């Protein structure tokens, strides 16, 4: 019914959570994906890092990134669970498939156009030629 898309889920686990708790949360995410149907493409634990601002009393957080193929319903359920969990300071779900596809498209388009060595001119239809030339001579 609903189409599968690619999402990026990042959540910040409280710094007082133990390694075990972080692993448990990850296992929970995996379990939800398995239950509702979806695929965990990549999982990355960034470990503990300083945050740019305090969230509540915390200055640091454990960042975990999950790249997921799944439906909107799956992400809805994941979000609900993350919201409930007390150890999660914050989470963010971003749909990435379209953005990555767009990036891929521009990349391949550039490859096709082998001619001009001037990379800067590629996209800037607005840029005047003389300006670009000048930059190249400087660089």
């Amino acid at each position, binding site marked *: 019914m609903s189409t599968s898309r690619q999402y990026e889920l990042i959540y910040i686990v409280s710094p007082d959570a133990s390694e075990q708790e972080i692993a448990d949360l990850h296992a929970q995410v995996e379990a939800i994906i398995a239950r509702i149907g979806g695929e965990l493409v990549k999982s990355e634990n960034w470990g503990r890092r300083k945050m*740019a*601002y305090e969230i509540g009393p915390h200055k640091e957080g454990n960042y975990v990134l999950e790249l997921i193929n799944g439906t909107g319903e799956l992400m809805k359920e994941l979000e609900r669970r993350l919201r409930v969990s007390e150890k999660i300071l*914050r989470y963010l779900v971003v749909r990435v498939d379209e953005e990555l596809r*767009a990036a891929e498209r*521009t990349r391949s388009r550039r490859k096709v156009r082998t001619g001009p060595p001037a990379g800067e001119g590629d*996209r800037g239809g607005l840029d005047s030629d003389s300006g670009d030339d*000048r930059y190249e001579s*400087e660089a």
Partner: protein
Amino acid sequence: MADERRGGGARGGRGGARGAKEEKGPGQRRSLFRRRKVCKFCAEKIDYIDYKDVRMLMPFVPDRGKILPRRISGVCAPHQRALQTAIKRARQLALVPYTAD
């Protein structure tokens, strides 16, 4: 009153002169070293501005925490738009500050 008019005329004249010069070609004469700015993302052929890549975003978030306007950074409009969403996402995750503390 006469003074005022003369001042206005002078200003207009200067502005007109500048415009004319730009039409001829950028920075040929006494342009005070206004270097041509080139979009960093176009130059380095970065297609996807990743909100997770703090090292890439930070140059566009000065100490104050605001997003650097493209009139300063020289980033092209499509990339500035992408950069803007990337920074806003990074802010939500406390990777990039909202404000200076």
